[in-house]
């Protein structure tokens, strides 16, 4: 196998918690804690997990927008920190697209001006040449060229998301972080954007990190999946085996919570429940991050952090961090839930 396009090794990101009028640092949020995964060139990794689990922070760290407290990020074989020191700026090969393109588009600039500015700032084109490139970018994302004259408020949510994608494409990146890009859109528009992203990936060999809380979309677009909880990876592996036979109790709970659009199945299927509340990222507990919510937690889960490992007799690329994942009672409960979720 060739070297991966993107490689994270033990990446940690912490944010200071400030208190009082003097804004003294009173602690730290462990937003991302020793996260490692690879993205193969031309493929998509789907990053899922609940709100606050560290998905966006991981995505930002990947393109140099969040400070690393530890670990390394390699982008196409080059260390991100070294690249930044050499160029003093974000490397042009990576881009990020956010959920709310309205907030990230300048309301006082037309779509054409916004795109042209990107081309000019990066010295990719100017003047008439830039206008032509803008036209082609709009073609690429399936927008009519006359939309270049419009302001963001005069576009629909789906159209704005296409503009945000066009803006990311303008600098011809090889890797794009897509942070909840379809989450706010209707099913019909979601489908259109997903098709667009997949066409672009096939035509240009783009590599994606697709961040979302929508498990049905991620299942459709991803080659592999990374599941985060409380800033750590709970499970990662090929899409198929994660969805059909999750190893980790949290993944199983997540999958069984997704409503199935089929009334007969939805009303009958067994579920794995999660108890209580998500972990407090400013006071991480020793042991497993999922311990408070896990139905299978025992003493060891409270004292020792489980390491990612594969399961005997299963795909060696499919890893999970759980002390008890091999045990029959856990396997049985998870496979019962999985059957309900996939049929």
């Amino acid at each position, binding site marked *: 196998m060739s070297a991966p396009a993107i490689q994270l090794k033990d990446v940690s990101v912490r944010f200071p918690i400030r208190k009082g009028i003097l804004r003294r640092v009173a602690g730290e949020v462990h937003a991302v804690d020793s996260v490692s995964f690879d993205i193969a060139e031309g493929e998509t990794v789907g990053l899922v997990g609940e709100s606050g689990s560290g998905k966006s922070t991981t995505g930002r760290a990947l393109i140099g927008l969040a400070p690393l407290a530890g670990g390394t990020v390699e982008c196409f074989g080059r260390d991100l920190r070294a690249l930044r020191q050499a160029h003093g700026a974000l490397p042009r090969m990576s881009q990020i697209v956010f959920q709310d393109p309205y907030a990230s588009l300048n309301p006082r600039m037309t779509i054409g001006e916004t795109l042209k500015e990107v081309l000019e700032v990066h010295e990719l084109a100017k003047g008439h040449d830039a206008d032509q490139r803008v036209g082609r970018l709009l073609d690429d994302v399936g927008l009519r060229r006359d939309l270049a004259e419009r302001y963001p408020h005069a576009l629909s949510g789906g159209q704005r998301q296409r503009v945000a994608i066009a803006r990311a494409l303008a600098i011809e990146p090889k890797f794009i972080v897509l942070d909840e890009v379809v989450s706010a859109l209707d099913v019909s528009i979601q489908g259109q954007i997903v098709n667009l992203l*997949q066409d672009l990936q096939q035509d240009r060999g783009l590599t994606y990190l697709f961040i979302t809380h929508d498990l049905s979309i991620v299942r459709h677009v991803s080659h592999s999946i990374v599941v985060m909880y409380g800033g750590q990876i709970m499970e990662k592996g090929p899409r198929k085996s994660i969805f059909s036979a999750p190893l980790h109790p949290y993944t199983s709970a997540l999958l069984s919570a997704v*409503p199935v659009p*089929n009334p007969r199945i939805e009303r009958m299927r067994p579920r794995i429940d999660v108890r209580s509340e998500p972990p407090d990222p400013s006071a991480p507990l020793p042991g497993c991050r999922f311990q408070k919510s896990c139905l299978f937690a025992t003493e060891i889960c409270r004292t020792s952090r489980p390491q990612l490992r594969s399961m005997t007799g299963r795909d060696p690329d499919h890893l999970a961090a759980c002390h008890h994942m091999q045990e029959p009672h856990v396997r049985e409960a998870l496979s019962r839930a999985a059957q309900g979720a996939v049929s």
Partner: protein
Amino acid sequence: MMMFTKPHPAQTIRSSDAVFEVKDLGVAYGRDAASVQVVNDVSLSVGRGEALGVVGESGCGKSQTMLAALGLLPRGGRITSGQVLLEGRNLVDLSPREMRAVRGSGIALISQDALTSLNPAMTIGTQMAEPMIHYGGMSRSAARTRCIELLDLVGIPGAATRLASYPHELSGGMRQRALIAMAISANPKVLIADEPTTALDVTTQSQILRLIDSLRKELGMALILITHDLGVVAGVADRVAVLYAGRVVETAETETLFASPRHPYTKALLDTISQLEDEVSERLNPIPGLPPDPRNPVQGCPFNPRCDYVRDVCRAELPALADSVEGGRHPVRCHVDPFVGLSLTMASGGAR
């Protein structure tokens, strides 16, 4: 296949069975030439203890229908036609004061922006107790007892201490539980939940849905669940109404709707969702184009620019919501009704 039989008018539940009915409701903003019709001829009904799902894309009029029904339209919005009946009593002409009483005990709404509209400077207990004291005439201590009882009922652990919490001290799921507790505090006959789980994580979403469903059964409330997520209605609703461009385009029992949708829009939505389960390399076949903008209404059937089955008549005439085949149990607003044959053969059998 073209249908020449004269359609039966769409049959809703007989008024005596329905606790809550919306009949031919219209809502518009602005006046005269600037008038924009955002809800058109919407009829819905829900029986005692029944759960009705209302689904449709963003902007199709789901929230406006419910706000109008509850007399909560914002400035500029007005009801242009129709009736809203709670146990047979028309609410449309009630005074604001009478309407407030109805909203307390007759119908409760968990509004779409409820999660963000909690007052950040007031404890949960104060926000819950205030209407009980003001409108319910309860004493402070009785209200407190009732609050604890309600928080217990919606599964908030340590209810007594939670009363002193401020909204930001609760997680999204806990806040939604508190809002549900407030909504059911005066034993409403009808609970309207407008996208109650959209802002929540999937695991929390599923817990909240099951909570709402079990409260409905326990308290015998009728439930109207508004959502854009067909998976959500699949688990909870007994019947579903599909809205498109401010109109009901199809209603049916939930199982029937999923097994044999009749409107091309419903069919296309369900197909897109099921395609998501396919392999990565396969392209989706999403509904093309955009939903219509009520400021530029489409002539004829509003779905015609996006419809695979469109004919000339669709561009000229608005189809009526009617059912000529299933005895009025599965009305659809479509001239062509392209899956009707399918619907009859499949209704007793297949799952999807």
